[in-house]
């Protein structure tokens, strides 16, 4: 039985968006609507706020293996992760010309410093460092974050965006709630029937969604969900179920994801393109909507490595995700030189070791093209799960 042509077409369309490093879709949207487009770096920004002011939030995720880095390397030493250099390269080669601004969420020192570099390299665009609080008391960290969001909102308005109104923000929250709900459903479907939602496909869809308005991406998710779950041409194979963690910022190359799948793994949970799942449940639409956004970050955000969370919450969280997804193994898969991911890893490993789940770890860079070692490693991992599971 062959695949539904509509599914193929949808995935192709998403693939085209994913490969669109020069943001043609964004240019096209701007030409059509005359609105502002503002990029943001991984891993989280409150897109609802931008949307409510008529701004298109554009998720920037670094480069891909086929991007030749010429100028970007002039800005970074070899021992710094790859994402900032491809970001600089894309900025300098004009790919981001359509963006009226960039938001740098507080992720790590590299992104933090990049915000200053951006100010110097592109003095005309809005550069906003979003200092996500590490104090989760609404009266302290919440108040600070709220002030920060207000200043962002004013800066957008100063550039010609609509003024922020509570009504518009409520509507945007509702749209993003629906969008996030569909992502949760896609993840749930993949957990249940991973052969129906191959990760290299889901990933591309999630990436494509970063470049289009939320209304469009919601439609895309819904269609994909319907088509993929209905497709009977996709049959289960004898693969090991694994959870992939650590890739929350710089993204692994698509070929790496494919390599893992080919080496015998079903990815049943991951932290790729984390912005879609950074807030875990619906944000209330009643009450003060800006406060709701603030509170969601304080109380409902994932236990990301970039946040200070006391007690072994992160480990417990990981183990719970592994249990819920029925993972038979955990793959720690982090970008080389990524301090937040790599410093978290020993703690996470210790947590996983308290369960019976086997794990393995490797590093990548977004521009890797060589997966021999990883294939060997993932292959052996899958082999041993398959050969010995239940034994």
């Amino acid at each position, binding site marked *: 039985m062959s695949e539904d042509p509509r599914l193929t077409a949808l995935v192709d369309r998403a693939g085209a968006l994913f490969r669109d490093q020069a943001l043609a879709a964004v240019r096209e949207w701007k030409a059509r609507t005359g609105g502002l487009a503002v990029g943001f770096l991984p891993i989280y920004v409150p897109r609802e706020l931008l949307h409510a002011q008529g701004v298109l939030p554009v998720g920037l995720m670094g480069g891909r293996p086929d991007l030749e880095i010429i100028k970007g390397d002039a*800005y970074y030493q070899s021992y710094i992760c790859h994402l*900032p250099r491809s970001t600089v390269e894309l900025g300098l080669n004009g790919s981001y010309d359509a963006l009226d601004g960039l938001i740098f969420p507080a992720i790590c020192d590299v992104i933090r410093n990049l915000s200053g570099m951006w100010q110097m390299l592109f003095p005309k665009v809005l550069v906003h460092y979003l200092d996500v609080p*590490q104090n989760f008391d609404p009266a302290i960290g919440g108040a600070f974050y709220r002030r920060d969001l207000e200043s962002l909102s004013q800066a957008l308005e100063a550039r010609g965006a609509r003024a922020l109104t509570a009504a518009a923000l409520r509507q945007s929250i509702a749209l993003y709630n629906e969008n996030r709900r569909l992502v949760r459903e896609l993840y749930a479907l993949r957990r249940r029937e991973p052969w129906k939602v191959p990760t290299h496909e889901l990933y591309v869809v999630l990436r494509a969604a970063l470049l289009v308005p939320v209304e469009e991406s919601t439609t895309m998710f819904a269609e994909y969900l319907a088509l993929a779950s209905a497709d009977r041409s996709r049959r289960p194979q004898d693969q090991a179920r694994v959870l992939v963690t650590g890739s929350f910022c710089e993204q692994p190359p698509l070929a790496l994801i494919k390599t893992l799948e080919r080496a015998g793994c079903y990815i049943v949970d991951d932290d790729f393109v984390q912005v879609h799942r950074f807030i875990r449940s619906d944000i209330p639409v009643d009450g003060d909507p800006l406060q709701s956004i603030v509170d969601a970050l304080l109380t409902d955000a994932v236990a990301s490595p970039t946040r200070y969370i006391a007690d072994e919450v992160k480990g417990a969280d990981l183990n719970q995700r592994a249990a819920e997804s029925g993972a038979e193994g955990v793959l720690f898969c982090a970008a080389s030189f990524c301090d937040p991911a790599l410093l978290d890893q020993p703690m996470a490993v210790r947590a996983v070791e308290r369960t019976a789940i086997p794990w393995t770890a490797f590093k990548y860079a977004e521009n890797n093209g060589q997966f021999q070692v990883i294939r060997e490693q993932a292959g052996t991992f899958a082999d041993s799960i398959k050969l010995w599971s239940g034994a």
Partner: protein
Amino acid sequence: MSAAPIVATTAHKDSSQVRQKEMIARHFDRLAAAPDTGTRCAYTFVPGNLTELLLSFDVLPVLPEINALQSAMRGKTAEYIAAAEKLGHSEDVCTYVKSDIGMMKSGNIGPTGQRLPSPDLLLLSYTGCFTFMKWFELLREEYHCPVAMLHVPYQADGRITDSMRTYVVDQLKNVVIPKLEEVTGRQYDEDRLRAHLARSAQAEDDLVWVLQSAKNVPSPIDAYFGAVYYVGPIFSAFRGTADAVDYYRELREEIAGRIRQGKGPVTPDGEVERERFRIVVEGPPNWTSFRQFWKMFADEGAVAVASTYSKVGGVYDLGFRHDPDHPLETLAEYCLGCYTNLSLPTRIDLLTRYLSEYRADGFLINSVKSCNSFSAGQLHILREVEARSGRPGGFIESDLVDPRYFSAANIKNRLESYFQMLDQKRAGASS
């Protein structure tokens, strides 16, 4: 070319140096005795340290960064780092963290050979670097002790806003002070805090005078290698103490004496007799080969006249002083103002300013693999400062405490080429 010897071979120790050594030894004695005396200890970091506040609660600070660099100078870090990597820590991450974890796993023996007390509190004031946060997450798993988290926002736009100040003060009031009260069982005593802050400001005045003495030609101090010793007390456990006030007073007098005699800086291998190059340095030093590294400069007659590393514990030369009249606000201001919390454009301004104010021939960046906070963006700094100052920049790479990343031959080659370039430029300009 080498007509007169550049570095004289007699080494001597000034009395300030003796005093400093003695102060530090006393501090470690107190720490070693802490478990018996019942004194409380807090682990905390150099940038954004709240020493006065801790002292007002009679809490002794332990600074893991200082322990790591001291371990490196004593040649212990290779072993410590290996121990941490054995536990699954990546080769890629900050070696201060690994060295600290390795030290802890090897019995937590401090730089003086005495055992360090376990923390009663982890005071996580994470100024200027996200790694601090991870570091204490790791330590917390080991010690299971209370943590006080102080999130210090980043000066992304090159200034401190009211919102930031309020946020930090709110945290001091509602998180840090209550935690300290809980851990020590004492009440917050604002008058004591004020008294410490007043002493801080006094020492800070003298420190700034010392650092700015490098504006003299020849400079009486080395403001990078030498400054490491000068900033030691004020960046660590002594800010706000009478000891620090005395030390800086004495240091200032000594240096005033050197200026009167027209003397150059003291190095471990003797005095620099002939100042050939005046250099501004950006980035932390390498600790594993500290003396060798310094000698590479001194042998060429290269004197650091200003550095940014000597500002990681506070950029006092821009005017900031601890202010006893506004105790919490001043602490907030202090935390927000440390060098690594400055935006890249601000760092560039500062370097450019140093180049002209200190009449430097050029500047050098020592880029350390460990520290993204310092290093990410340094190549951009290099270019911008070159363009703005018109003076040549040099770039070398090493690491803080991982001896694997100090390649002496490579660094020497680059330094030599750099100094020859300055020389050639000078010859060209005068011909």
